[in-house]
């Protein structure tokens, strides 16, 4: 049984996953790059537990997201939305 607030978040994740796939990126790459591309961010802390997790993050360090992808992310999750 999933709480409604959490179900909404999972729906958002599904939309973001589809956006990432359309952009030729993994979800991890796109979301990490989203943080790194933000003008207020110097560095994004990633905390891998396994080598596989690390390898999934690394490409984000070299990625620049297009305006189209960033705009679509803002459509899926409006900027400055509350987290719940």
């Amino acid at each position, binding site marked *: 049984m999933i709480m409604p607030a959490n179900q909404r978040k999972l729906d958002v994740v599904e939309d973001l996953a589809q956006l990432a796939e359309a952009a030729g990126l993994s979800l991890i790459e796109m979301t*990490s790059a989203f943080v*790194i591309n933000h003008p207020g961010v*110097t*560095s*994004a*802390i*990633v*905390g*891998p*537990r*396994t*080598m596989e997790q*690390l*390898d999934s*993050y*690394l490409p*984000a*360090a*070299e990625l620049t997201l297009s305006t189209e992808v960033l705009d679509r992310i803002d459509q899926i999750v409006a900027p400055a939305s509350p987290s719940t």
Partner: protein
Amino acid sequence: MQYRPLGRTGVQVSPLCLGAMMFGPWGNDDRADATRIIHRELDAGINFVDTADVYSAGVSEEIVGHALAGRREDVFLATKFFMPMNDDPNHRGGSRRWIIHEVENSLCRLGTDYVDLDQVHRPSPDTDVAETPRRAQRPGPPGQGPLPRVLVLLRVADRRGPVGLSRAEPGAVRHRAAAVIHPCARRRGGRAADHPALRHGHPDVQPARRRLGCRAAGARTPHPSRCRRLTRASGST
């Protein structure tokens, strides 16, 4: 990889920072595997590593310290303090008393003489943490001024709140060596201030430790009991 300036510190950091929270019993307790992960990050060009005293009760810092052996100068190393480290009501928080002790403990676990960034792990509405770094110093050897314990202390209000940067003294990093050797020299009756490694501010304290017969933690991962001896020798509890 494009490096970015970290505020006005003059330091360039990678856009990804390796968070070490999952290294140790809290996550990946295979130290060899964790070391491989850290090395893979460094080889990929990441030069920014973040851990905390509380992560796996000090084991994360030990793992990071071991993995950085021989590469310490390649990394901008960050850790934290504030979370309770045991049941003692004063082995936590943002008091000057605790910061002075816990920075020593972190340095010992990390096997290094300095941290680049020490972060206040939680907001502290009833403690003047912002004042503490200016006074979180220890008197240096005779003839020298006070020695800073960390290069930069970053106040993390909370995950959504403002972040303030207080106090950066990147040029003073070499002098940190004196504060580590001095308590050992005092215990053995030597004079740390006379040692050429300290006079010239050489960052490699291993030869100095051997000359002084000091058994304090070196660049390798120290055994925790050595860290406690170092703390007692310094006169702190």
